[in-house]
């Protein structure tokens, strides 16, 4: 949680870049993705895209900061702790993950979004790369 009272996402450009093509050392993975290219490294910032992507997180953060200011640090800490406890997934990275408990805690258990009914998840799924997923998970 960021103790800030931002109402809308700020347009501050992030300097850290997380490459999609990075291996476990954080470098470009040539064996898997080929030589380095401009496409994977240049990041064009779009103000509206950043705003929309960070919208829900910013609103949630504002509420948590308000809770902190009114009740004390324990209030948001407990809520965040519950969310973390509920997000624990001991299984292998499986195809479909639905976390009802987390949805309930986040207050989205009674809402249906476009992604929930529009595209069958089988088409969205990238080719099974269990090894890469496990590596990412265990290096955490």
């Amino acid at each position, binding site marked *: 949680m960021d103790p800030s009272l*931002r109402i809308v996402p700020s347009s501050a450009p992030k300097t850290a870049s997380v490459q999609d093509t990075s291996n476990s050392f954080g470098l470009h993975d040539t064996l898997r993705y080929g030589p380095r290219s401009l496409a994977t490294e240049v990041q064009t910032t779009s103000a509206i895209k950043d705003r929309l992507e960070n919208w829900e997180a910013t609103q949630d953060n504002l509420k948590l900061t308000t809770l902190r200011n009114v009740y004390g640090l324990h209030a948001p800490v407990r809520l965040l702790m519950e969310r973390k406890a509920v997000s624990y997934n001991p299984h292998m990275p499986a195809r479909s993950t639905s976390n009802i408990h987390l949805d309930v805690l986040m207050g989205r258990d009674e809402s249906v979004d476009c992604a929930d009914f529009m595209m069958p998840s089988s088409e969205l799924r990238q080719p099974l790369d269990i090894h890469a997923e496990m590596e990412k998970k265990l290096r955490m």
Partner: protein
Amino acid sequence: MQTVDMQQLKSGEVNLGTSIMAVQFRDGVVVGADSRTTTGSYIANRVTDKLTHIHDRIYCCRSGSAADTQAIADIVHYHLQMLTQQSGERPTVHIAGNVFQKLCYENKDALSAGIIVAGWDKDAGPSVYNIPLGGGLFRQPWAIGGSGSTYVYGYCDATYQEGWGRDETVNFVKNTLSLAMSRDGSSGGVIRMCVITEDKVERLFVPGNELPKFWEGEEVLKLIAPVKKRHEFTDDMAVEV
């Protein structure tokens, strides 16, 4: 590459070009505002209520972007309700002012909001807090804001007296707003006022045709020569073709 600037009030966006004020008197405060909301030169709402309830005895006057000020007022209302539940008593105007100030300062790059918070609480009695664009907090006996306020600083400085009662203060607010509304294109409509005291909040309404009138130039028009004589003059000068 063309990037849209999401953060600023875009041209034509709904604007509270406005005249707002709040004045403290013996037993309470009087808050007042005009009622015009503009989108460019179109008056989107000519009977707007810019006096927003924040708590039982705390109201705020909003100027600047309509969306920004509504969003902030909602957040502060939510915050103060939680505080009331926690503490069991009404929050002070000082607390309300500080909550507004924190929001306005931290979001100053994205907001266009000038807010005046005023009310009554049992610790300080009546108080008025002015929060201009940058997000500073200033306690004042009287405060004016909005685009129309620039025209009436002189009038307010010359007229304001300490120790007024309710009726004198209401008149002061009515006259000031009337003058501002007659000079500022972005202010107009009706005058809405709230008188906030320990016992109650009283809403007052002054329709557009009952606004106090000041110099309107009628005596200037009388000095011009009457119409009949002008016609004679014109006939003498007629050119025969």
